[in-house]
């Protein structure tokens, strides 16, 4: 299962946004201070033990002990705590301030994939897609985090810390990629059997490309171009796929699985689990439970010819 051409990392230590960079710097700073404290404590312990090795005991005087406890146990933690509160609060404000311009995306946590709904300023729906969020480089994107089932958490380590999706409330967050690229994210609140493979990609494109992408996503599906695609469309409608999946422009409006209107434009399948190639797609349709045990898509058994036609049809949904 190789994701060719996709980002290989989702490391918070390789930040691609200002927020993530701030936090990464915070980490390096804390690592240095923390290591220094650990070393100092262990050094004190080491000296304490070494000094007792001679023939006589050489205890610390009461005053010496008192000063040691005061310096190590009271003063140092106080200073550190103060510093961390100051840093934590100011950085928290900067990261938490959701901007008031930029595209709005509703991120909806499903079992176990992500639905993404792009809204305009008035809150009207522009386009729906799944598991692959496109964002314009250098512009903030406002996120509304929604769940109607269990709690999930939206996390793209290279771009922003996580925020939970909690049923019954709408949480807000935002991301802004500083450079173009593909960033991987993953659900980080345990949400049931396939929590492990509930991931997604964030693709940061130059703004013009992003606009093109969005207007393309807003369009209905392509019409079949060949007889094989036509037959594939028939198979799609007859095989029960429509019960769960939507393809805009067709009488398919299922809501259990991802919107497939522009499936072929996506890089991955099954919530960024397998690459979107014909082989993987065929394998997924015939035996999804093998790839992602417990997921909500049943296997579909069909004639090889039908499968080929279906794959051709799906491949045309760019």
């Amino acid at each position, binding site marked *: 299962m190789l994701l060719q051409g996709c980002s*290989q990392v989702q490391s918070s230590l390789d930040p691609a946004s200002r927020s993530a960079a701030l936090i990464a710097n915070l980490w390096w700073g804390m690592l240095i201070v923390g290591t220094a404290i650990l070393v100092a404590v262990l050094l004190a312990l080491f000296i304490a033990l070494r000094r007792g090795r001679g023939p006589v005991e050489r205890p610390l005087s009461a005053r010496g002990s008192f000063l040691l406890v005061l310096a190590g146990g009271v003063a140092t933690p106080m200073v550190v705590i103060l510093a961390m509160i100051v840093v934590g609060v100011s950085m928290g404000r900067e990261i938490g301030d959701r901007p008031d311009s930029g595209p709005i995306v509703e991120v909806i946590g499903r079992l176990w994939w992500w639905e993404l709904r792009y809204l305009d300023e008035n809150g009207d729906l522009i386009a729906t897609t799944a598991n692959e969020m496109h964002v314009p480089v250098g512009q903030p994107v406002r996120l509304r985090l929604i769940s109607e089932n269990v709690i999930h958490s939206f996390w793209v380590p290279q771009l922003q810390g996580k925020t939970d999706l909690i049923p019954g409330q709408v949480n807000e967050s935002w991301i802004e990629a500083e450079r173009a690229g593909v960033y991987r994210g993953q659900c980080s609140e345990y949400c049931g059997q396939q929590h492990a493979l509930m991931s997604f990609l964030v693709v940061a494109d130059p703004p013009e490309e992003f606009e093109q992408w969005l207007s393309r996503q807003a369009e209905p599906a392509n019409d079949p171009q060949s007889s094989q695609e036509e037959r594939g469309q028939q198979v799609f409608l007859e095989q029960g796929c429509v019960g769960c999946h939507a393809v805009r422009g067709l009488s398919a409006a299922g809501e259990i699985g991802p919107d497939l209107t522009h499936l072929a434009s996506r890089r991955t399948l099954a919530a960024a689990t397998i690459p979107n190639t014909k082989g993987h797609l065929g394998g997924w349709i015939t035996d999804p439970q093998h790839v992602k045990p417990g997921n909500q898509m049943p296997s579909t058994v069909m004639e090889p010819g039908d499968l080929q036609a279906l794959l051709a049809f799906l491949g045309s949904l760019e």
Partner: protein
Amino acid sequence: MSVTSNSGQEPIVARTPEEVERLGATWQSPKGFIGWFMPVNQRVIGRRFVLTAFVFFFLAGALGVLMRIQLMSPENDFLSPDLYNQFFTVHGTAMMFLFAIPVMEGIAIYVVPMMVGARDMAFPRLNAFGYYVYLIGGTVFFGSLLLGFAPSAGWFNYVPLAGKEYSPGLGVGIWTTMITFIEVSALTAAVEIIVTILKLRAPGMTLARMPLFVWAALVTAFMIVFAMPAVIASSSMLVLDRQVGTHFFTPETGGQPLLWQHLFWFFGHPEVYIILMPALGIISTIIPVFTQRPIFGYTALVLSLVATGFVGFGLWVHHMFTTGLPQLGMTFFMAASAMIAIPQGIQVFCWIASLWGGRVRFETPLLYVLGFFVIFVAGGITGVMVAVIPFDLQVHDTFFLVAHFHYVLIGGAVFPLIGGIYYWYPKMFGRMMDERLGKISFWLAFIGFNVTFFPMHQLGLEGMPRRIYTYLGELGWGDLNLLATLGSLVLAGGFLLSLFNAVWSLWRGEPAGDDPWGSPTLEWATPSPPPNYNHEYIPIVSGRYPLWERRGQASQPVVTGLRDDRREVLVTSVLDAEPQAVAVMPGPTIWPFISAVAASTGFLGILYHPSFFLVGFFGAAATFTMWFWPRRPWRDD
């Protein structure tokens, strides 16, 4: 009853051999199969708690290793997702509820009465009841794993995932029931420990002379009393949601998923300190013994324990930094969370000052304490880091957290605990554990621990969430995971070696004698293993280190006049431990066991049908009546 001061190491009014025998017979526990269900003596119950808890520890540890094997390589299929999810749920729940709390309670139940010079605990039958409830609850919980319907919603069991809709079946029901069992058991033990410490101390053991372990047990018990009700409330609400269709937590009908998190963590965070606190007491016990010097900063250590107890209740929201709560409120919890570093820092440095320049005996118990220093301080530092909200937003629910809390729990609680076992084993069984095996076990555990859990910090920073049964190869997490898995085998080896050592030493260990380590506290004034009645005479205490103060002195003041033909204990005042009265303790009986069975039938039956509530209620009421049927201690007067 009278207080006699005499001038020989032997008390003046020595008992005749017949009297000693009668005393032994009075405090004797029944024998035989039925007899197994009847004893109420604190040491029997305490030992059972500890042994049972260790059985659960090794079972849960095995699950941990199996999870590590699954994560050893990307896209491994050693465990199915469903099984992995059950494993981490059972592992976490069992470690927290079935191992850590009960084992600490068990040690307190075993050691505290002897340390304060008492013959038993305040409510012996309640003690026994608490144990059976725990045993039944734990067994059913692990049984569910064998039968394949263990819960799989994680140890903190968040709703709505844990609600009926997303977790149908028995699993979560078993979880809530098990929680109820443990609550009952922990609350009985806590009440028991509080009353024993406050009212049954030997004369002269004022609060300011109480051993630090006793202080730790006292604070722990108070924390249990205040923390448990929150989880009792939340788990009852969850049972109601699941069984009778209430809507506390279902958002579609106005319920609040976050309510669960508040209630659970209001209990769950103090829980961590409930586990840690007795371990801190063990460290304060071991350090003076292995330096043969009084500890530095007794008062500071006591105040730190108490402060930790209080502050521990003000931190729970730091488990919820990612839930979108308002910034300002969270800042308060960030500050409070970091503040806990101060009492911890004071303790660590008091211990360092106590060790400073002393002639330290590097025996196994002390080694485990030194291991604590390295691991716990590291875990404490990452703890302060994750209290900084922006950083927590990145590492929350990742392997960084898994690393952090294992550093705190294993380093902070399990290492001192094992040190404590090596330390008290000779008292419990009359034989020493093997030193050489002990040292090897320490090094295996210490190295294995760090190899297992240190790499997880890096994995978390690289984006690996916790509670995932697998991950894709191209994420590059494979190597560190493999390393962690290898480490876990070494760690398990270290723990198993100590287990082997404990079993082997039962037969082969060197006879220990009364006081093999030269300890200062009263439990070492009894023979090893102690007789049924602990102390032949209740000692009178005049300092913090009674046995050291007695050294070289010819006299040993004791209390005389307690009868030896019934279970009498001396009741003393709360602050100054002035003798006040003599209480007669109840003897062995089977009713606590039968009550526990009746209550358990009710708790478990509710999963099947709500009407079992009535069965449990009336069954327990009837058996409690039998249990409390008035004895007539005055009859033979």
